[in-house]
């Protein structure tokens, strides 16, 4: 088969004769079996694979490479590889899979991260035809220019810096790869962070400077020089070329001394270590500096040695007083050799960006005029410039994290906040901010102060979509792949619930089961309650037509709750309070009842009240630890005020357990001893009194029962020792009036004392 190796360049080849282009060697052997393979796998070798000529493809790729290189220069980071990657990957994958609804996001994600072994960025997405993905990935890679920084870069092993250095002009490069770290341990600090855009005329000036160094001004004391903090930075190139440059020294003198010594050692050794550093110019620079320049080096070293401090103290000094006297960095002799700055600026400072210099110049002038007013002496420091706003300016390590990366992290965080129902997913956050807003709205209404704009986080709202999961299918394969993921877990264990028969159970188990039943009932009722309480909000959000349905639902739920509370009605009668009492024994149950009672109808609420009163001693006993009963007082009092007289009387009866009259009334005594019980009793009595006074009173007076009750209550109150009587939550004012009607003044006084 002669077609395998030849590249005639004619574009008239039929598709069937197309051979694999890129890896000729690998497929040379297969070339002989071409026919067989063609038949079997059209997609890889035949018509489905390549739509166009390999040469055209290559030319296109070559063009792209140039474009990409130009693009990288232009905007510095090759576009937005982060976003691009995701898009093209998604596109490719959808083409790869037959059914384009890859509903399972977990699978999608996993596939995405696995497939791109080394995807070049900036490739035309049109090239990425479905089944030719794998083939395409190989060839263009080597020729392709990778964008300097991309999210995948971090995962990739660091490339040898050598090919990068060779192929690029260092002065053109915007951002070197962060992943290549020169030394293990702390890398030598640079005066300027790695991602410094270089100045244009760095290279020629560089050589010039080294050969004819300007006079060195050496200072033994510590100074801070912040050459490149103001947004624009200088490349190590420029810095090294300055005789007294901060690369040889350092801009943060205190903190970086340990590294400084390291750096110095590197230089002394002739840049043996420095040669491994990633920015190529650094290597060259160190090498050059290490070369014998007797006029420069010893002086520098001497100066630097004098500045060396112990690491600990260095750090301490750094962390200790950043706001201490910080002389401004006057721009030094500029690379373009502008006029020597002389006295105004500090002559040993490094090169600054012209804009920076100008600004500093202005500032200094301002300060000088200030200073003359302040302390007269211009000093050798040229003016103090401390203040919090200065700090970020002087930090040469600032913005190591690019804006783009910050946006990326923030994007991820926002994605995590996506929710179809924020009220459900993030209830507390939503509530809290609603409250805040209400507060600020209320404040605004009250006072006409300036509207305080509180920045709100607008979380992305995602429409609720119902996804039915369809398993992934691949073309040509038989059957369906079962990929079990987070969204469709595979059933591993068949857990069947078996209920045990009644006979086998022991007493304890029965008790335990009963308690569990009660707990389950409480939980179910609680969900109903939360739903019902939520109806108001839903009502506001809903449309007009839906509202009646909502109201109906709500009513139904309330009925359900009541049924739950009292136990399912066997017939008309509710013979036992047992169910209710069980619920009331549990703390959560009591709170539940407290929340439900306001929602119930009057009859239902009265029923609950009666049941409570009937069993009050028992409940009191059970409540000894929790002491939650008082929380019921408020809802109960609301109910009380709507009760008709008859009910009130029967309630009082229940409280005092009148049918079982005896000289000793333990029921009532227990009630009196308990805070809740006593308060309830007082409420009942006071309500009765109200009714009496309001009503013309005839009815009540005729009612013997009521009178008896009151007398009984009073008797009991008197009898009980003062210590035993609990302190009621609220002692209604009209109690005394009530009681005065029935008892003589003597007893009344005694009662009065008791009531206090």
């Amino acid at each position, binding site marked *: 088969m002669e077609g395998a190796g030849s590249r005639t360049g004619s574009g008239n080849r039929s598709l069937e004769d197309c051979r694999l282009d890129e890896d000729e060697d690998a497929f040379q052997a297969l070339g002989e079996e071409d026919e067989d393979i063609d038949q079997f796998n059209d997609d890889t070798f035949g018509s489905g694979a390549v739509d166009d000529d390999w040469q055209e493809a290559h030319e296109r790729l070559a063009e792209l490479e140039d474009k990409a290189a130009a693009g990288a220069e232009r905007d510095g980071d090759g576009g937005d590889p982060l976003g691009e990657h995701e898009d093209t990957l998604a596109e490719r994958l959808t083409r790869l899979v037959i059914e384009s609804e890859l509903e399972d996001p977990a699978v999608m994600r996993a596939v995405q991260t696995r497939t791109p072994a080394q995807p070049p960025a900036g490739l035309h997405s049109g090239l990425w035809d479905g089944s030719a993905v794998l083939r395409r990935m190989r060839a263009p890679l080597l020729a392709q220019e990778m964008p300097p920084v991309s999210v995948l870069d971090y995962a990739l092993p660091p490339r040898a810096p050598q090919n990068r250095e060779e192929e690029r002009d260092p002065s053109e490069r915007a951002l070197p790869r962060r992943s290549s770290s020169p030394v293990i341990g702390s890398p030598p600090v640079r005066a300027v962070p790695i991602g410094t855009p270089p100045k244009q005329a760095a290279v020629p000036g560089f050589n010039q400077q080294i050969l004819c160094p300007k006079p060195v001004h050496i200072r033994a004391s510590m100074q801070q020089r912040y050459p490149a903090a103001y947004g624009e930075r200088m490349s190590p190139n420029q810095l090294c070329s300055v005789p007294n440059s901060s690369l040889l020294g350092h801009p943060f003198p205190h903190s970086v001394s340990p590294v400084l010594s390291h750096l110095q050692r590197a230089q002394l050794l002739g840049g043996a270590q420095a040669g491994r550093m990633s920015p190529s110019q650094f290597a060259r620079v160190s090498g050059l500096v290490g070369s014998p320049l007797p006029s420069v080096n010893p002086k520098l070293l001497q100066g630097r040695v004098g500045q060396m401090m112990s690491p*600990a103290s260095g750090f301490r000094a750094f*962390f200790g007083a950043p706001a201490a006297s910080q002389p401004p960095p006057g721009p030094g002799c500029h690379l373009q050799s502008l006029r020597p700055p002389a006295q105004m600026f500090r002559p040993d400072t490094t090169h600054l960006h012209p804009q920076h210099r100008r600004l500093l110049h202005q500032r200094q002038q301002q300060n000088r005029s200030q200073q003359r007013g302040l302390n007269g002496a211009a000093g050798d420091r040229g003016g103090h410039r401390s203040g*919090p706003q200065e700090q970020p300016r002087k930090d040469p*390590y600032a913005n190591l994290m690019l804006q783009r990366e910050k946006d990326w992290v*923030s994007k991820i*965080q926002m994605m995590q906040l996506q929710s179809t129902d924020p009220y459900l997913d993030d209830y507390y956050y939503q509530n809290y901010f609603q409250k805040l807003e209400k507060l600020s709205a209320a404040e605004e209404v009250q006072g006409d102060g300036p509207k305080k704009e509180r920045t709100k986080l607008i979380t992305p709202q995602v429409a609720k979509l119902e996804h039915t999961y369809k398993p992934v299918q691949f073309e040509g394969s038989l059957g369906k792949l079962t990929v079990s993921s987070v969204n469709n877990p595979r059933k591993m264990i068949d857990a069947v619930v078996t209920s045990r028969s009644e006979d086998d159970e022991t007493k304890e188990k029965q008790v335990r089961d009963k308690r569990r039943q009660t707990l389950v009932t409480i939980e179910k009722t609680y969900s109903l309650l939360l739903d019902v309480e939520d109806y108001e909000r839903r009502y506001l959000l809903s449309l007009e037509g839906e509202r009646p349905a909502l109201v109906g639902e709500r009513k139904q739920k309330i009925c359900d709750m009541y049924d739950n509370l009292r136990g399912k009605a066997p017939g008309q009668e509710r013979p036992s309070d047992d169910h209710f009492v069980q619920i009331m024994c549990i703390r959560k149950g009591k709170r539940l009842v407290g929340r439900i009672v306001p929602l119930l109808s009057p009859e239902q609420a009265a029923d609950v009240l009666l049941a409570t009163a009937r069993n009050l001693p028992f409940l009191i006993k059970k409540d000894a630890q929790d002491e939650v009963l008082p929380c019921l007082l408020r809802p109960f009092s609301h109910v009380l005020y709507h009760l008709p007289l008859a009910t009130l009387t029967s309630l009082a009866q229940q409280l005092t357990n009148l049918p079982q009259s005896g000289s000793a009334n333990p029921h009532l005594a227990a009630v009196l001893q308990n805070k809740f019980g006593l308060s309830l009793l007082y409420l009942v009595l006071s309500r009765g009194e109200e009714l009496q006074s309001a009503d013309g009173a005839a009815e009540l007076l005729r009612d013997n029962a009521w009178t008896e009750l009151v007398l009984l209550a009073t008797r009991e109150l008197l009898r009980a020792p003062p210590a035993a009587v609990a302190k009621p939550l609220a002692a209604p004012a009209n109690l005394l009036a009530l009681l005065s009607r029935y008892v003589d003044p003597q007893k009344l006084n005694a009662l009065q004392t008791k009531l206090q």
Partner: protein
Amino acid sequence: MNYMPGTASLIQDIDKKHLVLLRDGRTLIGFLRSIDQFANLVLHQTVERIHVGAKYGDIPRGIFVVRGENVVLLGEIDLEKESDTPLQQVSIEEILEEQRLEQQAKLESEKLKVQALKERGLAVPRADTLDEY
């Protein structure tokens, strides 16, 4: 640019000096240079601060990369108020010595406690091995 108001996002904290408490009990102080979505931190010019009693000592560590799950809490350090502390700074050797003494004392008291419990026939409560701090 106000990143994510009303939430706890570390983006606004970048390039500021922070105190980070780790799960193993170490206290790191450094400039927060980089973060990611897991709250992995890159601390620059980090100093490990050892506190014993009213004294503390700093060990300069350089650059730290901390895995997010090991961070207990972190907070920004107010540079102006930083020196306003009743604690006394001592040298590294001294603080390490103090720490060693403290550890010793703790071990001894622990031993005594275990002994006392044993004498009374009570079991020793097992500490959670995940968090030694």
